[in-house]
């Protein structure tokens, strides 16, 4: 039997194992080395966990029995310290020496650290893994400043608010979730979250974190001179692919570990998937492309390799504090050289925006009510000509079915 070593036990790795053991259950003797001392859990569910909406058992999607049933050896709490490509071996901190025929890197990403003074003080935290959540859940109620108005920052802020903290979120841009929402939706989100008790400071540059004199956080200082008193700071300013191990092993690393369309690295025996990789100048942070990479990579590891991973722009689906959001494509109409048209629908509690170019949908934002997302996504993916639907397109699929004779009914002035 061939030996497969998997470094990393996150969502990408678990999904790959699931695919691979289904495609080729007897091909490999598999060893998984996880840095965290846990079995596979659903990282997406960390926010509900932080809110108190679920528990650890529920979010542990791949418990130890799952590995046992598939004959997978799982080593947790012991990070890999080195890869010896020539010997095809990896070394763990605990001294395991694991030989491989194939190696999969699924090392994920780490939270970006604020590059400012005081980022290392006590009370400055991240929101990335189960360990972070446990720590955040243990905090006595206090004042929290969350830095970063992206998805993770908002999730953390909302959860901590629900935990009884007084939460202020600072964001460097003019509107929240600027990667996923247009300005109008971002503003609505801010208003809705303000209504729930969150405080926002927008277009704010964090200058430093003030020391309380005992090595702990006292306040966040902004470039414009504002001082936000804080007991804790949660930094949520993005993630950085974890590629150090690969770099040390002499694999090509740019922003992340470079892979080709088969998810193979520079070394034909080594594959990489997930947040640690860079594929065609792109890095990844959302779960959908990771799953696709896992599927493609699994097919190659199973020696059924004919599939190629090509990034498909899929819709981003998020839920912030119970508010559903979906976006895709060029939803802000900014990336083209003109010629795209904006359709907007504003309702109490929901918002829709479609960008149209040459009678085709090129981007979308849905806020609140996202029931129509599949309808628009299909039209977008199929590049369907929407000119016949245009007048009712924003109202949703139910209004886009032509009716018998309904069209000119009002044009009649007369019986």
């Amino acid at each position, binding site marked *: 039997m061939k030996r497969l070593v998997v470094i990393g036990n996150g969502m990408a790795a678990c999904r790959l194992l699931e695919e691979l053991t289904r495609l080729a259950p007897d091909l490999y003797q598999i060893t998984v080395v996880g840095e965290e001392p846990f079995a596979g859990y659903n990282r997406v569910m960390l926010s509900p966990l932080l809110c108190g909406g679920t528990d650890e058992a529920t979010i542990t999607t791949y418990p130890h029995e799952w590995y046992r049933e598939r004959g997978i050896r799982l080593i947790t709490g012991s990070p890999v310290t080195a890869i010896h490509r020539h010997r095809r071996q990896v070394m763990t901190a605990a001294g395991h020496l694991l030989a491989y025929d194939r190696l999969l890197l699924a090392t994920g990403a780490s939270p970006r650290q604020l590059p400012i003074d005081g980022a290392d003080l006590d009370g400055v935290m991240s929101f990335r893994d189960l360990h972070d959540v446990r720590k955040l859940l243990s905090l006595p109620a206090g004042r929290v400043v969350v830095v970063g108005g992206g998805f993770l920052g908002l999730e953390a802020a909302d959860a901590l608010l629900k935990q009884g903290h007084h939460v202020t979120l600072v964001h460097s841009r003019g509107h929240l979730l600027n990667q996923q929402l247009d300005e109008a939706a971002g503003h609505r989100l801010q208003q809705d979250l303000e209504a729930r008790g969150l405080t926002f400071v927008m277009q704010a540059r964090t200058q430093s974190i003030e020391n309380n004199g005992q090595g702990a956080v006292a306040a966040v200082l902004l470039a414009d001179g504002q001082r936000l008193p804080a007991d804790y700071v949660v930094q949520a300013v993005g993630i950085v692919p974890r590629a150090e191990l690969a770099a040390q092993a002499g694999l090509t690393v740019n922003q992340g570990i470079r892979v080709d369309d088969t998810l193979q690295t520079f070394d034909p025996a080594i594959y990489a998937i997930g947040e640690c990789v860079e594929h065609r100048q792109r890095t990844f942070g959302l779960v959908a492309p990771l799953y696709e990479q896992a599927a493609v990579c699994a097919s190659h590891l199973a020696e059924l390799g004919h599939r190629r991973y090509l990034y498909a722009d899929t819709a981003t689906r998020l839920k912030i504090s119970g508010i559903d959001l979906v976006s895709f494509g060029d939803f802000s109409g900014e990336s083209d050289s003109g010629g795209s*048209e*904006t*359709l*907007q*629908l*504003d*309702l*109490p509690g*929901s918002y829709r925006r479609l960008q*149209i170019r040459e009678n085709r949908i090129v981007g979308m934002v849905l806020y609140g009510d996202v029931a129509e997302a599949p309808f628009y996504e299909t039209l977008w993916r199929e590049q369907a000509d929407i000119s016949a639907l*245009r*007048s*009712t397109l*924003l*109202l*949703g699929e*139910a*209004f886009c079915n032509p*009716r*018998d*004779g*309904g*069209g*000119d*009914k*009002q*044009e*009649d*002035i*007369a*019986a």
Partner: protein
Amino acid sequence: MSICTTCPYCGVGCGIRTDGTALEGDKQHPANTGRLCVKGSSVLETLGDQDRLLQPEVNGEVVSWDQALDEVAERFRRIVDEHGPDAVAFYVSGQLLTEDYYVANKLMKGFIGSANIDTNSRLCMSSAVVAHKRAFGEDVVPGCYEDLELADLVILTGSNTAWAHPIVYQRIAAAKQARPEMKVVVIDPRRTATCDLADLHLAIRPGQDVPLFNGLLTWLADQNALDLDYIETHTEGFAETLQTARDQGNDWEVLASQMGVSKVDLTTFYHWFATCERTVTVFSQGVNQARNGSDQGNAIINAHLATGRVGKPGASPFSITGQPNAMGGREVGGLANQLAVHLDIDNPDHHAAVADFWQSESLANANGLTAVDLFNAVESGEVKAVWIMATNPVDSLPEADRVRHALMACDTVVVSDCVASGDTLACADIRLPALGWGEKSGMVTNSERCVSRQRPFVDAPGSAKADWWIITEVARRMGYEAAFPYQHEHEIFAEYSALTALAGRFGKRLDLTAAAALSADQYEQWQPQQWPLQGEPRCFGDGHFSTPSGRGRFVACENPRVRQIGDAFPIILNSGRIRDQWHTMTRTGRAGRLFAHLSEPFAALHPKDIERYRLSDGGFVRLSSRVGDALVRVKSDAGQRPGTAFMPMHWTDQFSRRARVDALVPARLDPHSGQPAFKHTPVNVSDWQPRWHGWLFTAAPPPAVEYWARVPVDAFLQAGQVQRYRLAGDADLTEQQLHDWMPEAAQWLALNDPATGHFRRAALDKEGRLIAWLAIGEELPLCDVEWLANCFADESEIQHLALLAGQPVDAGPDLGPVVCSCFQVRQKTIEAAVEEGADSVEAIGKCCQAGTNCGSCIPELRGVLETCSV
């Protein structure tokens, strides 16, 4: 407890029985024996305090009645003292009750001392009055409705009876159904709904009525079909009249071609007339509203005199009137060239008798100004104060824009009306709140001389008062207390009835003397009765007329000069009523249901003309004449004669941006009657293509855009009644403008597609109820306007997307337009009934109720039967 009253609409004068919450046709009333048309049966929907004038106003300030009446009396007194009695005028209406009319006439002619009181009957009936007076020596309709049922030939000329006098039409239809051998001829340049009943439709060219009836006279002579004994014994002037008729020759081929009909049709009509002893010729505004309207009336009467068919059972000329009390007004003398009770101002004996009766020393001794001249005199400043009662001359007179300017510049304009807003009210210095139908009490006379009561059954809104009370109070304040002692309307009616004794003294038929001693109780108990009271139902059947000689007079009628149609104004515009509306919509405009038939102002044109002038059916057309213009929708109608157009008379500035047909009509008058030629306006037409279309539902006034048309919605908000506006414009719109058209709102629903100009807005209040709705697009935005209207009345939560869409998600099939207004039955429901085997109007009615109430949609039901069976 229910009361019996009379319908406020047309001159048929149907009886209504109502308790204020429901109504039915009065089975005891001789005019309708229980039937009602759609307007009559929906009249309760038009009641209510909304948009009612509730308090007197002077210069925009609410004042007490005392102040208002003092002001009117003082101003009239001052102007009469300074400038003489002819410097003031009353302009009154066929909507007034006989008592109101009587005191107005008595005050102006008898005591102010001017005959400057004219009525809107000038616009519809005065040519018939002239024709009657010339032929019979008195303004008397000789026949009665029963004649329509007794006749073997009914000729309907210049009358879309099916729509304008639906119950008369139904009586003819029922008679024809009972006696299919009875023949009906419709003479009308348009193919109207009335033609449904016709055995023969003569679509003559506009203005060819005199040649047609002159030709008839010649034909009768040629065919030895004259009643020579009758002519010899009972008439005068026959020889010259026949000679005048003969002047056009008797080459029927040539004449038919001039008239625009086939020779076969023409001679068939003549043959039928010659051979049917029992012939009734019904004529209405199509005959009267012409430059030679009086001659057209006499040309008809000539044919009846020549065959001895006047006032005999089933044989008579029959002028039918447009208004509920046009006849009452004519009787009391409400026209500027009448004195009172069918007597003449310029007859010294008549004058002396009336002056004596009224104990008046200042009775007017010269004819006053007729409607058009009266407003010309307002314009020139000769008339410095005018009091307008229950009518809307800014919409209904020709050159209507000029009338508006004249009133705006006039020293004193008093308007008594029951509505709070109107195009004429907008010109008023003093506004007096009058009672409306259902509140007021008095008498009306219908087209067959039947005098019926209008009885009150609801309380007066605000401090509104009866017109007779208002006039009486002003008369007293002007110093005529002794002549105006009235405490109750029955006293006025009794006095008027007593006055008719003078008519009898001078050989007239008008006779209500039996009511001269009427008690208040008898007045209350009054049952519909024809005058002459206690007389025969018909007049002149014995061959004795009210002329000095006692003979009926032929009137030689010259053919009108043929007017060349110029290139500048190549289309002849006709105007008239539509089925479900009435006059200037002050009443019918309050019931949304009555807009289901025709919801916007339009010009009907023949498809060939639509093509020729590059218009589009359902599009917009700008019509211009020498004096004005209008902007309305295009309605293709193969029933129009090519080269002609038809516009409804109803739309005012209260209901559309620019659709007043009378703004187009030049003031060309019949020289004898002073009646304007409303049916013959040369216009040009041009296409107007708006850059955007829209719907707006709001309780606010319409926005200032190029085109709007309003329909009331049966829903009320704090800001007032919800209105539905159809909008169109060609100026660029900004989002700010759209915002400005909408009220303040707690919540908004919005859809924006600026690239295609498609915008939708729904405004909600705090509770989430719809308070305004707007949709704008390059094409008319799709929506279900009836569903939306219901959303305003609906308290339950409506799904936001559906609301913005303007239609329910699970919209049922589109059932097409409403055909039967009474039961709201739609086109496709009727088609389905026909497809399931309903093969007659009756069968359709059994299947889906359509046509079983007022019956005015029966011509359209027949249309469906024809189309579906092809």
